């Protein structure tokens, strides 16, 4: 990679890498909160495996940021407060009422919709990154994409099957789609750095990617007999600009609890 390119686009690179890393990190955390609570044992294994892969993806993106002079990946993951994070708001939302430490009444329909919509979006981003102007990002995206194949297959299967199951299941799924879409608006956004990120050729524009996502949804919605008008894209807050909800504070407090006991500990 040309040093001049990195020098000239360092800020855009860091912004995009942290968006990708923070997305996967919090997604993996919310997925891990389902451990022992998933609908059946096979799903427990599958969810855990997907969360572990996704944590690996986050770690790769953090390491690319680390190479640009940021803190070490572990610090980026654990020590940054919510106001410094760039993940989409959709991914920080709790899984439902309660906590796994007490009485969790998590919402499986919401989880399936969120995970399917996010995984499809991530797949489209990884494919776009294969023509990125930053070579190290191409290599990582290619590898992530190979693993993502299985994640997408998994969540799409759950989505289609639940939508087409009983009337009750269908109602829960439709209501989950509405709930997910409330926060979906920032998923393809690159925030304030949007123009420079695209001008640097790091990834294609939000509009192009969103259009590809909608095309995928059209065929699946058609299979499930779902109304495409359920897909609305309004955003009140934008996680890419470090705007977040209290859910993210709660998540960070929990996931960084052990780390904060002794940040200098060697793992």
């Amino acid at each position, binding site marked *: 990679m040309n040093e001049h390119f990195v020098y000239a686009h360092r800020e855009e690179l860091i912004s995009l890498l942290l968006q990708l890393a923070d997305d996967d990190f919090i997604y993996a955390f919310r997925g891990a909160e389902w451990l022992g609570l998933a609908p059946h044992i*096979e799903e427990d294994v599958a969810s*855990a495996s997907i969360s572990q*892969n996704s944590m*690996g993806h986050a770690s790769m993106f953090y390491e690319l940021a680390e190479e640009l002079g940021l803190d070490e990946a572990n610090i980026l993951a654990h020590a940054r407060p919510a106001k410094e994070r760039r993940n989409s708001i959709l991914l920080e939302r709790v899984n439902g009422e309660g906590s796994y430490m007490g009485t969790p009444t998590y919402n499986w329909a919401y989880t399936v919709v969120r995970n399917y919509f996010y995984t499809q979006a991530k797949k489209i981003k990884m494919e776009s990154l294969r023509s990125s102007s930053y070579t190290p990002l191409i*290599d990582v995206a290619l*590898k992530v994409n190979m693993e993502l194949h*299985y994640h997408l297959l*998994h969540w799409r299967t759950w989505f289609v099957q639940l939508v087409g199951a009983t009337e009750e299941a269908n109602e829960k799924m439709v209501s989950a789609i509405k709930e997910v879409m409330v926060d979906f608006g920032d998923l393809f956004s690159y925030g304030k750095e949007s123009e420079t990120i695209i001008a640097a050729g790091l990834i294609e524009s939000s509009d192009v990617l969103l259009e590809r996502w909608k095309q995928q949804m059209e065929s699946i919605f058609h299979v499930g007999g779902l109304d495409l008008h359920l897909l609305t894209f309004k955003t009140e807050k934008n996680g890419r600009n470090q705007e977040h909800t209290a859910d993210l504070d709660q998540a960070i407090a929990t996931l960084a609890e052990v780390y904060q006991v002794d940040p200098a500990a060697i793992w």
Partner: protein
Amino acid sequence: MAIIEHMHVGIDEVRRKLEEVKDPEIDTVSIVELGMVEAIEVKEGHVVVKILPTFLGCPALPIIQKNIEQVLWSLRGVVSINVKFIHSPPWTSDRINDAGRKGLKKFGIAPPPRFEEDGSWHVDCPFCLSTYVTMENLFGPTACRSILYCKSCKNPFEAMKPVSTL
């Protein structure tokens, strides 16, 4: 005058030694057989080993790194060891060689199949070789494995997931 022997380690010795490093979770296959060793560089005793991770979130990577360092230090003439995890080219399941495929089978894991043109794939039972099997869970006990069931010999078994850039 003291005679100082300049005995530096050679690249072939390093490669042979790496055959001793097994997958920490499957002790019948080595990292060489799995196709994880992409490059070995040796210069005046300074050894660099470049490793391709099979899956990015694989928790076995630090153990593999430690095991590589441990076996290489046993070689004479090693001055330093640097194990690097790299991502280009991406590891794919067709990098596993014939010895690796045999080793997996010995452990009771079906070797990774090739993808069919339509993206589907098929696995045979590693115990009785029957094709009459069902997929129980695409995701298994480790990132690289799936759980299947053989309807002929009534054994559950695992299979390496096929991983491809397709």
